[in-house]
Protein backbone atom coordinates (compact mmCIF):
# COMPACT_ATOMS: atom_id res chain seq x y z
CA UNK A 1 0.00 0.00 0.00
CA UNK A 2 2.71 2.44 0.99
CA UNK A 3 4.60 1.51 -2.13
CA UNK A 4 1.52 2.21 -4.24
CA UNK A 5 0.93 5.67 -2.74
CA UNK A 6 4.61 6.44 -2.99
CA UNK A 7 4.76 5.54 -6.65
CA UNK A 8 1.64 7.58 -7.43
CA UNK A 9 3.30 10.60 -5.82
CA UNK A 10 6.54 9.92 -7.70
CA UNK A 11 4.56 9.60 -10.90
CA UNK A 12 2.94 12.98 -10.43
CA UNK A 13 6.29 14.58 -9.83
CA UNK A 14 7.67 12.89 -12.94
CA UNK A 15 4.72 14.15 -14.98
CA UNK A 16 6.03 17.72 -14.73
CA UNK A 17 9.12 16.74 -16.70
CA UNK A 18 7.17 14.71 -19.24
CA UNK A 19 4.83 17.65 -19.80
CA UNK A 20 7.71 20.08 -20.30
CA UNK A 21 9.31 17.79 -22.90
CA UNK A 22 6.08 17.20 -24.78
CA UNK A 23 4.76 20.74 -24.75
CA UNK A 24 7.86 22.02 -26.54
CA UNK A 25 7.68 19.27 -29.13
CA UNK A 26 3.99 20.02 -29.72
CA UNK A 27 4.54 23.77 -30.05
CA UNK A 28 7.34 23.35 -32.54
CA UNK A 29 5.44 20.76 -34.55
CA UNK A 30 2.19 22.71 -34.41
CA UNK A 31 3.55 26.05 -35.49
CA UNK A 32 6.41 25.04 -37.75
CA UNK A 33 5.36 21.62 -38.98
CA UNK A 34 8.73 20.17 -38.00
CA UNK A 35 9.26 17.09 -35.85
CA UNK A 36 12.22 18.21 -33.77
CA UNK A 37 14.25 15.06 -33.28
CA UNK A 38 16.86 17.06 -31.39
CA UNK A 39 14.41 17.89 -28.62
CA UNK A 40 15.87 15.35 -26.21
CA UNK A 41 19.32 16.79 -26.86
CA UNK A 42 18.03 20.26 -25.98
CA UNK A 43 17.05 18.83 -22.60
CA UNK A 44 20.47 17.19 -22.38
CA UNK A 45 22.19 20.54 -23.02
CA UNK A 46 20.15 22.04 -20.16
CA UNK A 47 21.30 19.26 -17.84
CA UNK A 48 24.93 19.59 -18.96
CA UNK A 49 24.84 23.32 -18.31
CA UNK A 50 23.87 22.70 -14.69
CA UNK A 51 26.44 19.92 -14.33
CA UNK A 52 29.23 22.01 -15.83
CA UNK A 53 28.50 25.34 -14.16
CA UNK A 54 27.01 24.24 -10.86
CA UNK A 55 28.59 20.88 -10.06
CA UNK A 56 31.98 21.64 -11.66
CA UNK A 57 32.35 25.36 -11.14
CA UNK A 58 30.16 26.18 -8.20
CA UNK A 59 27.84 28.67 -9.87
CA UNK A 60 24.63 28.84 -7.77
CA UNK A 61 21.99 26.35 -8.92
CA UNK A 62 19.26 28.92 -9.57
CA UNK A 63 21.61 30.91 -11.77
CA UNK A 64 22.52 27.85 -13.78
CA UNK A 65 18.84 27.16 -14.42
CA UNK A 66 18.51 30.58 -16.00
CA UNK A 67 21.72 30.16 -17.96
CA UNK A 68 20.57 26.74 -19.19
CA UNK A 69 17.32 28.27 -20.41
CA UNK A 70 19.20 31.04 -22.22
CA UNK A 71 21.67 28.67 -23.89
CA UNK A 72 19.05 26.18 -25.03
CA UNK A 73 16.72 28.95 -26.24
CA UNK A 74 19.59 30.38 -28.28
CA UNK A 75 20.22 26.98 -29.85
CA UNK A 76 16.53 26.68 -30.67
CA UNK A 77 16.45 30.14 -32.24
CA UNK A 78 19.49 29.34 -34.36
CA UNK A 79 17.83 26.10 -35.51
CA UNK A 80 14.77 28.05 -36.61
CA UNK A 81 16.68 30.80 -38.34
CA UNK A 82 19.29 28.73 -40.15
CA UNK A 83 17.60 25.35 -40.64
CA UNK A 84 13.84 25.32 -40.27
CA UNK A 85 13.08 28.65 -41.93
CA UNK A 86 14.99 27.85 -45.14
CA UNK A 87 13.28 24.43 -45.11
CA UNK A 88 9.83 25.79 -44.29
CA UNK A 89 8.04 24.12 -47.18
CA UNK A 90 9.95 20.88 -46.76
CA UNK A 91 8.97 19.15 -43.48
CA UNK A 92 11.19 16.17 -44.25
CA UNK A 93 14.12 18.53 -44.76
CA UNK A 94 13.46 20.14 -41.38
CA UNK A 95 13.30 16.74 -39.72
CA UNK A 96 16.60 15.64 -41.25
CA UNK A 97 18.22 18.92 -40.18
CA UNK A 98 17.03 18.32 -36.62
CA UNK A 99 18.63 14.87 -36.66
CA UNK A 100 21.86 16.59 -37.68
CA UNK A 101 21.56 18.92 -34.70
CA UNK A 102 20.97 15.87 -32.49
CA UNK A 103 24.36 14.41 -33.46
CA UNK A 104 26.16 17.74 -33.21
CA UNK A 105 24.87 18.31 -29.67
CA UNK A 106 25.74 14.76 -28.60
CA UNK A 107 29.27 15.20 -29.90
CA UNK A 108 29.58 18.61 -28.25
CA UNK A 109 28.51 17.06 -24.94
CA UNK A 110 31.07 14.28 -25.34
CA UNK A 111 33.79 16.84 -26.08
CA UNK A 112 32.92 18.88 -23.00
CA UNK A 113 32.22 16.11 -20.51
CA UNK A 114 34.02 13.12 -21.97
CA UNK A 115 32.53 9.72 -22.70
CA UNK A 116 33.16 8.22 -19.25
CA UNK A 117 30.54 7.25 -16.69
CA UNK A 118 27.36 9.31 -16.36
CA UNK A 119 27.67 12.51 -14.41
CA UNK A 120 25.80 13.29 -11.24
CA UNK A 121 24.82 16.63 -9.79
CA UNK A 122 24.42 16.54 -6.00
CA UNK A 123 20.94 17.85 -5.17
CA UNK A 124 21.26 21.51 -4.17
CA UNK A 125 18.21 21.13 -1.97
CA UNK A 126 18.84 18.44 0.60
CA UNK A 127 16.25 16.96 2.86
CA UNK A 128 13.04 15.06 2.51
CA UNK A 129 9.47 15.85 3.41
CA UNK A 130 7.87 13.01 5.30
CA UNK A 131 4.09 12.86 5.13
CA UNK A 132 1.82 10.42 6.96
CA UNK A 133 4.90 8.88 8.55
CA UNK A 134 5.94 6.84 5.56
CA UNK A 135 5.47 8.95 2.41
CA UNK A 136 8.85 10.45 1.51
CA UNK A 137 9.27 13.28 -0.98
CA UNK A 138 12.73 14.78 -1.50
CA UNK A 139 12.74 18.57 -1.39
CA UNK A 140 14.57 18.60 -4.73
CA UNK A 141 11.63 16.88 -6.39
CA UNK A 142 9.10 19.20 -4.81
CA UNK A 143 11.11 22.11 -6.16
CA UNK A 144 11.17 20.65 -9.67
CA UNK A 145 7.46 19.92 -9.85
CA UNK A 146 6.61 23.37 -8.49
CA UNK A 147 8.76 25.10 -11.10
CA UNK A 148 7.46 22.86 -13.91
CA UNK A 149 3.89 23.63 -12.94
CA UNK A 150 4.60 27.35 -12.81
CA UNK A 151 6.14 27.20 -16.29
CA UNK A 152 3.15 25.29 -17.70
CA UNK A 153 0.67 27.72 -16.14
CA UNK A 154 2.64 30.67 -17.53
CA UNK A 155 2.56 29.08 -20.98
CA UNK A 156 -1.15 28.47 -20.73
CA UNK A 157 -1.79 32.09 -19.72
CA UNK A 158 0.37 33.31 -22.59
CA UNK A 159 -1.48 31.16 -25.15
CA UNK A 160 -4.98 32.00 -23.96
CA UNK A 161 -4.69 35.57 -22.69
CA UNK A 162 -2.24 37.39 -24.91
CA UNK A 163 -2.56 38.57 -28.48
CA UNK A 164 0.75 36.90 -29.38
CA UNK A 165 -0.57 33.68 -27.86
CA UNK A 166 -3.69 33.81 -30.00
CA UNK A 167 -1.53 34.56 -33.01
CA UNK A 168 0.62 31.54 -32.23
CA UNK A 169 -2.43 29.27 -32.07
CA UNK A 170 -3.73 30.84 -35.28
CA UNK A 171 -0.47 30.13 -37.12
CA UNK A 172 -0.59 26.53 -35.88
CA UNK A 173 -4.02 26.18 -37.45
CA UNK A 174 -3.57 28.03 -40.70
CA UNK A 175 -0.33 29.73 -41.58
CA UNK A 176 -1.60 31.40 -44.73
CA UNK A 177 -4.80 32.73 -43.19
CA UNK A 178 -2.69 34.07 -40.32
CA UNK A 179 -0.46 36.03 -42.65
CA UNK A 180 -3.64 37.49 -44.17
CA UNK A 181 -4.37 38.95 -40.71
CA UNK A 182 -1.04 40.77 -40.73
CA UNK A 183 0.68 38.19 -38.55
CA UNK A 184 4.37 37.78 -39.32
CA UNK A 185 4.51 34.00 -39.33
CA UNK A 186 8.30 33.85 -39.23
CA UNK A 187 8.26 35.87 -36.06
CA UNK A 188 5.64 33.58 -34.53
CA UNK A 189 7.76 30.55 -35.47
CA UNK A 190 10.67 32.14 -33.66
CA UNK A 191 8.51 32.67 -30.57
CA UNK A 192 7.24 29.08 -30.71
CA UNK A 193 10.67 27.51 -30.92
CA UNK A 194 11.98 29.87 -28.24
CA UNK A 195 9.27 28.73 -25.86
CA UNK A 196 9.70 25.07 -26.78
CA UNK A 197 13.46 25.24 -26.35
CA UNK A 198 13.17 27.23 -23.12
CA UNK A 199 10.89 24.53 -21.70
CA UNK A 200 13.40 21.86 -22.78
CA UNK A 201 16.28 23.79 -21.21
CA UNK A 202 14.30 24.24 -18.01
CA UNK A 203 13.40 20.55 -17.92
CA UNK A 204 17.04 19.63 -18.41
CA UNK A 205 18.21 21.95 -15.65
CA UNK A 206 15.56 20.71 -13.23
CA UNK A 207 16.23 17.09 -13.97
CA UNK A 208 20.02 17.45 -13.65
CA UNK A 209 20.23 16.72 -9.88
CA UNK A 210 17.78 13.82 -10.21
CA UNK A 211 19.18 11.82 -13.07
CA UNK A 212 22.24 10.39 -14.77
CA UNK A 213 23.70 12.92 -17.14
CA UNK A 214 25.36 11.63 -20.30
CA UNK A 215 25.49 12.54 -23.99
CA UNK A 216 22.84 9.95 -24.83
CA UNK A 217 20.22 10.85 -22.25
CA UNK A 218 18.17 12.61 -24.94
CA UNK A 219 17.26 9.23 -26.37
CA UNK A 220 14.87 8.22 -23.61
CA UNK A 221 13.53 11.75 -23.44
CA UNK A 222 12.52 11.92 -27.09
CA UNK A 223 10.87 8.49 -26.79
CA UNK A 224 8.90 9.74 -23.81
CA UNK A 225 8.02 12.96 -25.64
CA UNK A 226 6.80 11.03 -28.69
CA UNK A 227 4.67 8.68 -26.61
CA UNK A 228 3.13 11.55 -24.68
CA UNK A 229 2.58 13.67 -27.78
CA UNK A 230 0.95 10.90 -29.77
CA UNK A 231 -1.19 9.61 -26.93
CA UNK A 232 -2.25 13.20 -26.22
CA UNK A 233 -3.09 13.85 -29.85
CA UNK A 234 -0.40 15.33 -32.05
CA UNK A 235 -0.73 19.08 -31.87
CA UNK A 236 -2.88 19.27 -28.76
CA UNK A 237 -1.21 21.00 -25.82
CA UNK A 238 -3.83 20.13 -23.22
CA UNK A 239 -3.80 16.58 -24.56
CA UNK A 240 -0.02 16.48 -24.13
CA UNK A 241 -0.22 17.66 -20.54
CA UNK A 242 -2.96 15.17 -19.69
CA UNK A 243 -1.09 12.36 -21.42
CA UNK A 244 2.08 13.41 -19.58
CA UNK A 245 0.34 12.93 -16.24
CA UNK A 246 -1.19 9.60 -17.23
CA UNK A 247 1.96 8.25 -18.82
CA UNK A 248 4.16 9.39 -15.94
CA UNK A 249 1.89 7.59 -13.48
CA UNK A 250 1.88 4.50 -15.65
CA UNK A 251 5.62 4.59 -16.24
CA UNK A 252 6.44 5.08 -12.57
CA UNK A 253 4.12 2.26 -11.49
CA UNK A 254 5.47 -0.21 -13.99
CA UNK A 255 9.02 0.81 -13.11
CA UNK A 256 8.31 0.33 -9.42
CA UNK A 257 6.71 -3.08 -9.78
CA UNK A 258 8.60 -4.40 -12.82
CA UNK A 259 11.34 -2.43 -14.53
CA UNK A 260 12.00 0.76 -16.45
CA UNK A 261 12.61 -1.17 -19.66
CA UNK A 262 9.25 -2.91 -19.44
CA UNK A 263 7.66 0.49 -18.69
CA UNK A 264 9.13 2.08 -21.81
CA UNK A 265 8.31 -0.88 -24.03
CA UNK A 266 4.70 -0.89 -22.86
CA UNK A 267 4.60 2.86 -23.40
CA UNK A 268 5.66 2.36 -27.01
CA UNK A 269 3.04 -0.36 -27.40
CA UNK A 270 0.37 2.00 -26.09
CA UNK A 271 1.58 4.61 -28.56
CA UNK A 272 1.27 2.17 -31.45
CA UNK A 273 -2.19 1.14 -30.26
CA UNK A 274 -3.29 4.76 -30.11
CA UNK A 275 -1.95 5.31 -33.62
CA UNK A 276 -3.98 2.35 -34.86
CA UNK A 277 -7.18 2.83 -32.89
CA UNK A 278 -7.45 6.60 -32.42
CA UNK A 279 -4.75 8.44 -34.37
CA UNK A 280 -6.04 11.79 -33.14
CA UNK A 281 -5.08 10.85 -29.58
CA UNK A 282 -7.11 11.27 -26.43
CA UNK A 283 -7.82 14.97 -27.03
CA UNK A 284 -6.37 15.56 -30.45
CA UNK A 285 -7.09 18.62 -32.46
CA UNK A 286 -4.66 21.47 -32.50
CA UNK A 287 -2.32 23.59 -30.43
CA UNK A 288 -5.27 25.74 -29.52
CA UNK A 289 -6.79 23.31 -27.04
Amino acid at each position, binding site marked *: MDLLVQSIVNGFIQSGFFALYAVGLVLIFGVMGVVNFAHGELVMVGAYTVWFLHAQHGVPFLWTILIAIVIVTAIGMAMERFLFRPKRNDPLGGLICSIGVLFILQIAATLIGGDGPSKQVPPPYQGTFVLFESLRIPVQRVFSIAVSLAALVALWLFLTRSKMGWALRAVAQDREASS*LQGINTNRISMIAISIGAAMAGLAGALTAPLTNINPHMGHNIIITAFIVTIVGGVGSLSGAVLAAVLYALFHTMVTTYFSATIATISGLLIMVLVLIIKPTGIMGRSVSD
Partner: protein
Amino acid sequence: MDLKIENLHVLYNHVTALRGISIEVKSGDFITLIGSNGAGKSTTLRTISGLVKPSLGTVTAQGQRIDGMAADEILKLGIAQVPEGRRIFKDLSVIENLRLGAFTRNNKAEVNQDLHRVFQIFPKLQERQGQHARTLSGGEQQMVSIARALMSRPKLLLLDEPSLGLAPIIIREIGKTLIDINQAGVTIVLVEQNADLALRLARYGYVLESGKIALENDAEHLANNDHVKKAYLGI
Protein backbone atom coordinates in the same frame (compact mmCIF):
# COMPACT_ATOMS: atom_id res chain seq x y z
CA MET B 1 -7.81 52.55 -52.31
CA ASP B 2 -6.66 52.65 -55.92
CA LEU B 3 -5.46 49.34 -57.24
CA LYS B 4 -3.81 48.70 -60.56
CA ILE B 5 -2.89 45.30 -61.94
CA GLU B 6 -0.86 45.27 -65.12
CA ASN B 7 -0.05 42.36 -67.38
CA LEU B 8 -0.10 39.87 -64.52
CA HIS B 9 1.25 36.39 -65.19
CA VAL B 10 1.23 33.67 -62.55
CA LEU B 11 2.77 30.24 -62.85
CA TYR B 12 2.26 27.37 -60.41
CA ASN B 13 5.16 25.05 -61.04
CA HIS B 14 4.29 24.30 -64.63
CA VAL B 15 0.65 25.32 -64.71
CA THR B 16 -0.04 28.79 -66.02
CA ALA B 17 -2.88 30.25 -63.95
CA LEU B 18 -2.85 33.84 -65.22
CA ARG B 19 -1.67 34.92 -68.65
CA GLY B 20 -1.48 38.69 -68.65
CA ILE B 21 -4.46 40.26 -66.96
CA SER B 22 -4.87 43.98 -66.31
CA ILE B 23 -7.42 45.38 -63.91
CA GLU B 24 -7.92 48.87 -62.62
CA VAL B 25 -9.91 49.74 -59.54
CA LYS B 26 -10.57 53.30 -58.41
CA SER B 27 -10.87 54.19 -54.77
CA GLY B 28 -14.41 53.57 -53.50
CA ASP B 29 -15.32 51.36 -56.45
CA PHE B 30 -17.04 47.96 -56.30
CA ILE B 31 -15.85 45.57 -58.98
CA THR B 32 -16.32 41.87 -59.54
CA LEU B 33 -14.40 39.09 -61.23
CA ILE B 34 -16.52 36.27 -62.55
CA GLY B 35 -15.49 33.11 -64.33
CA SER B 36 -15.80 29.37 -64.15
CA ASN B 37 -13.71 26.87 -62.17
CA GLY B 38 -10.02 27.26 -62.68
CA ALA B 39 -10.31 30.56 -64.54
CA GLY B 40 -7.81 32.20 -62.20
CA LYS B 41 -10.06 34.28 -59.94
CA SER B 42 -8.59 33.09 -56.64
CA THR B 43 -5.09 33.33 -58.06
CA THR B 44 -5.73 36.98 -58.85
CA LEU B 45 -6.82 37.77 -55.29
CA ARG B 46 -4.02 35.69 -53.78
CA THR B 47 -1.50 37.59 -55.85
CA ILE B 48 -2.89 40.94 -54.72
CA SER B 49 -2.64 39.76 -51.09
CA GLY B 50 0.94 38.59 -51.50
CA LEU B 51 0.29 34.87 -51.03
CA VAL B 52 1.44 34.19 -54.57
CA LYS B 53 4.25 35.95 -56.43
CA PRO B 54 3.69 36.84 -60.08
CA SER B 55 6.18 35.69 -62.67
CA LEU B 56 5.55 38.82 -64.71
CA GLY B 57 3.57 42.02 -64.34
CA THR B 58 2.90 44.41 -61.49
CA VAL B 59 0.41 45.13 -58.75
CA THR B 60 0.25 48.72 -57.56
CA ALA B 61 -1.78 50.01 -54.63
CA GLN B 62 -2.06 53.75 -54.08
CA GLY B 63 0.89 54.22 -56.44
CA GLN B 64 3.11 51.78 -54.51
CA ARG B 65 4.35 48.50 -56.00
CA ILE B 66 3.13 45.68 -53.76
CA ASP B 67 3.94 42.56 -55.77
CA GLY B 68 6.88 41.01 -53.98
CA MET B 69 5.77 42.27 -50.57
CA ALA B 70 4.94 39.76 -47.83
CA ALA B 71 1.26 39.10 -47.10
CA ASP B 72 1.42 40.54 -43.58
CA GLU B 73 2.94 43.75 -44.92
CA ILE B 74 0.22 44.07 -47.55
CA LEU B 75 -2.49 43.70 -44.91
CA LYS B 76 -0.90 46.61 -43.07
CA LEU B 77 -1.38 48.80 -46.14
CA GLY B 78 -5.13 48.29 -45.75
CA ILE B 79 -5.79 45.35 -48.05
CA ALA B 80 -7.78 42.55 -46.42
CA GLN B 81 -9.01 39.30 -47.91
CA VAL B 82 -11.91 37.02 -47.15
CA PRO B 83 -10.26 33.90 -48.56
CA GLU B 84 -11.84 31.07 -50.49
CA GLY B 85 -13.24 28.47 -48.09
CA ARG B 86 -13.44 30.92 -45.15
CA ARG B 87 -10.19 29.85 -43.54
CA ILE B 88 -11.29 30.96 -40.09
CA PHE B 89 -9.41 29.65 -37.05
CA LYS B 90 -11.75 26.85 -36.11
CA ASP B 91 -10.24 25.98 -32.75
CA LEU B 92 -10.29 29.57 -31.58
CA SER B 93 -13.36 31.32 -30.25
CA VAL B 94 -15.34 33.73 -32.39
CA ILE B 95 -14.08 36.71 -30.43
CA GLU B 96 -10.46 35.52 -30.75
CA ASN B 97 -10.94 35.22 -34.50
CA LEU B 98 -12.27 38.75 -34.69
CA ARG B 99 -9.54 40.20 -32.51
CA LEU B 100 -6.93 38.48 -34.67
CA GLY B 101 -8.44 40.37 -37.60
CA ALA B 102 -7.30 43.50 -35.75
CA PHE B 103 -3.89 41.97 -34.97
CA THR B 104 -1.88 44.87 -36.34
CA ARG B 105 -3.92 47.60 -34.68
CA ASN B 106 -2.85 48.99 -31.34
CA ASN B 107 -5.59 51.44 -30.47
CA LYS B 108 -7.75 49.35 -28.13
CA ALA B 109 -10.63 51.82 -28.01
CA GLU B 110 -10.92 51.86 -31.79
CA VAL B 111 -10.73 48.08 -32.01
CA ASN B 112 -13.51 47.74 -29.44
CA GLN B 113 -15.56 50.25 -31.38
CA ASP B 114 -15.13 48.20 -34.56
CA LEU B 115 -15.98 45.04 -32.68
CA HIS B 116 -19.21 46.71 -31.64
CA ARG B 117 -19.82 47.66 -35.26
CA VAL B 118 -19.32 44.15 -36.68
CA PHE B 119 -21.58 42.81 -33.95
CA GLN B 120 -24.23 45.23 -35.16
CA ILE B 121 -23.79 43.92 -38.69
CA PHE B 122 -23.77 40.29 -37.52
CA PRO B 123 -25.73 40.05 -34.24
CA LYS B 124 -25.41 36.24 -34.40
CA LEU B 125 -21.69 36.55 -33.82
CA GLN B 126 -22.18 38.52 -30.64
CA GLU B 127 -24.40 35.76 -29.24
CA ARG B 128 -21.75 33.20 -30.11
CA GLN B 129 -18.61 35.13 -29.35
CA GLY B 130 -17.30 32.68 -26.74
CA GLN B 131 -17.90 29.58 -28.85
CA HIS B 132 -15.24 27.74 -30.80
CA ALA B 133 -15.61 28.80 -34.42
CA ARG B 134 -15.89 25.17 -35.51
CA THR B 135 -19.22 24.87 -33.71
CA LEU B 136 -20.81 27.52 -35.93
CA SER B 137 -22.94 26.82 -38.98
CA GLY B 138 -21.43 27.36 -42.42
CA GLY B 139 -23.17 30.69 -42.84
CA GLU B 140 -22.08 31.87 -39.44
CA GLN B 141 -18.51 30.84 -40.22
CA GLN B 142 -18.66 32.92 -43.38
CA MET B 143 -19.83 35.84 -41.25
CA VAL B 144 -16.80 35.34 -39.00
CA SER B 145 -14.55 35.42 -42.04
CA ILE B 146 -16.07 38.65 -43.33
CA ALA B 147 -16.18 40.24 -39.87
CA ARG B 148 -12.56 39.24 -39.25
CA ALA B 149 -11.51 41.00 -42.46
CA LEU B 150 -13.47 44.11 -41.46
CA MET B 151 -11.68 44.20 -38.10
CA SER B 152 -8.51 45.32 -39.86
CA ARG B 153 -10.37 48.44 -41.08
CA PRO B 154 -9.46 47.72 -44.69
CA LYS B 155 -9.41 50.34 -47.39
CA LEU B 156 -9.63 47.58 -49.97
CA LEU B 157 -11.61 44.41 -49.30
CA LEU B 158 -11.06 41.31 -51.46
CA LEU B 159 -13.72 38.62 -51.19
CA ASP B 160 -13.36 35.14 -52.68
CA GLU B 161 -16.75 33.50 -53.21
CA PRO B 162 -18.43 34.63 -50.00
CA SER B 163 -21.72 33.15 -51.18
CA LEU B 164 -20.47 29.60 -51.62
CA GLY B 165 -22.67 27.05 -49.90
CA LEU B 166 -24.96 29.56 -48.24
CA ALA B 167 -28.76 29.73 -48.17
CA PRO B 168 -30.32 32.40 -50.42
CA ILE B 169 -31.50 34.41 -47.45
CA ILE B 170 -28.01 34.61 -45.99
CA ILE B 171 -26.57 35.45 -49.40
CA ARG B 172 -28.96 38.36 -49.59
CA GLU B 173 -27.92 39.50 -46.12
CA ILE B 174 -24.25 39.35 -47.03
CA GLY B 175 -24.94 41.20 -50.28
CA LYS B 176 -26.60 44.02 -48.36
CA THR B 177 -23.69 44.12 -45.95
CA LEU B 178 -21.21 44.45 -48.81
CA ILE B 179 -23.12 47.37 -50.26
CA ASP B 180 -23.15 49.07 -46.85
CA ILE B 181 -19.43 48.51 -46.43
CA ASN B 182 -18.77 49.90 -49.89
CA GLN B 183 -20.94 52.94 -49.20
CA ALA B 184 -18.90 53.54 -46.08
CA GLY B 185 -15.94 54.08 -48.40
CA VAL B 186 -14.30 50.66 -48.63
CA THR B 187 -13.19 49.64 -52.11
CA ILE B 188 -14.37 46.11 -52.93
CA VAL B 189 -13.18 43.41 -55.31
CA LEU B 190 -15.63 40.52 -55.27
CA VAL B 191 -14.88 37.14 -56.83
CA GLU B 192 -17.95 35.04 -57.49
CA GLN B 193 -19.21 32.05 -59.39
CA ASN B 194 -22.67 33.30 -58.59
CA ALA B 195 -22.49 35.79 -61.46
CA ASP B 196 -26.07 36.86 -61.05
CA LEU B 197 -25.41 38.07 -57.51
CA ALA B 198 -22.03 39.59 -58.34
CA LEU B 199 -23.33 41.60 -61.28
CA ARG B 200 -26.18 42.95 -59.20
CA LEU B 201 -23.85 44.13 -56.43
CA ALA B 202 -20.87 45.45 -58.36
CA ARG B 203 -20.54 48.54 -60.53
CA TYR B 204 -18.07 47.06 -62.99
CA GLY B 205 -17.16 43.50 -63.89
CA TYR B 206 -14.44 41.42 -65.49
CA VAL B 207 -14.99 38.00 -66.99
CA LEU B 208 -11.99 35.71 -66.57
CA GLU B 209 -11.55 32.74 -68.87
CA SER B 210 -8.47 30.47 -68.71
CA GLY B 211 -6.31 33.09 -67.08
CA LYS B 212 -7.26 35.92 -69.40
CA ILE B 213 -9.81 38.68 -69.30
CA ALA B 214 -12.37 37.75 -71.91
CA LEU B 215 -14.73 40.65 -71.32
CA GLU B 216 -15.05 43.70 -69.13
CA ASN B 217 -17.77 46.27 -68.81
CA ASP B 218 -20.25 47.94 -66.48
CA ALA B 219 -22.01 45.25 -64.51
CA GLU B 220 -25.38 46.09 -66.06
CA HIS B 221 -24.00 45.71 -69.56
CA LEU B 222 -22.29 42.45 -68.72
CA ALA B 223 -25.53 41.09 -67.32
CA ASN B 224 -27.14 41.74 -70.69
CA ASN B 225 -24.27 40.37 -72.75
CA ASP B 226 -25.27 37.25 -74.69
CA HIS B 227 -22.12 35.33 -73.92
CA VAL B 228 -22.32 36.13 -70.21
CA LYS B 229 -25.99 35.21 -70.15
CA LYS B 230 -25.35 31.86 -71.74
CA ALA B 231 -22.14 30.91 -69.99
CA TYR B 232 -22.60 32.37 -66.52
CA LEU B 233 -26.18 33.31 -65.86
CA GLY B 234 -27.74 30.18 -67.31
CA ILE B 235 -30.36 32.12 -69.22
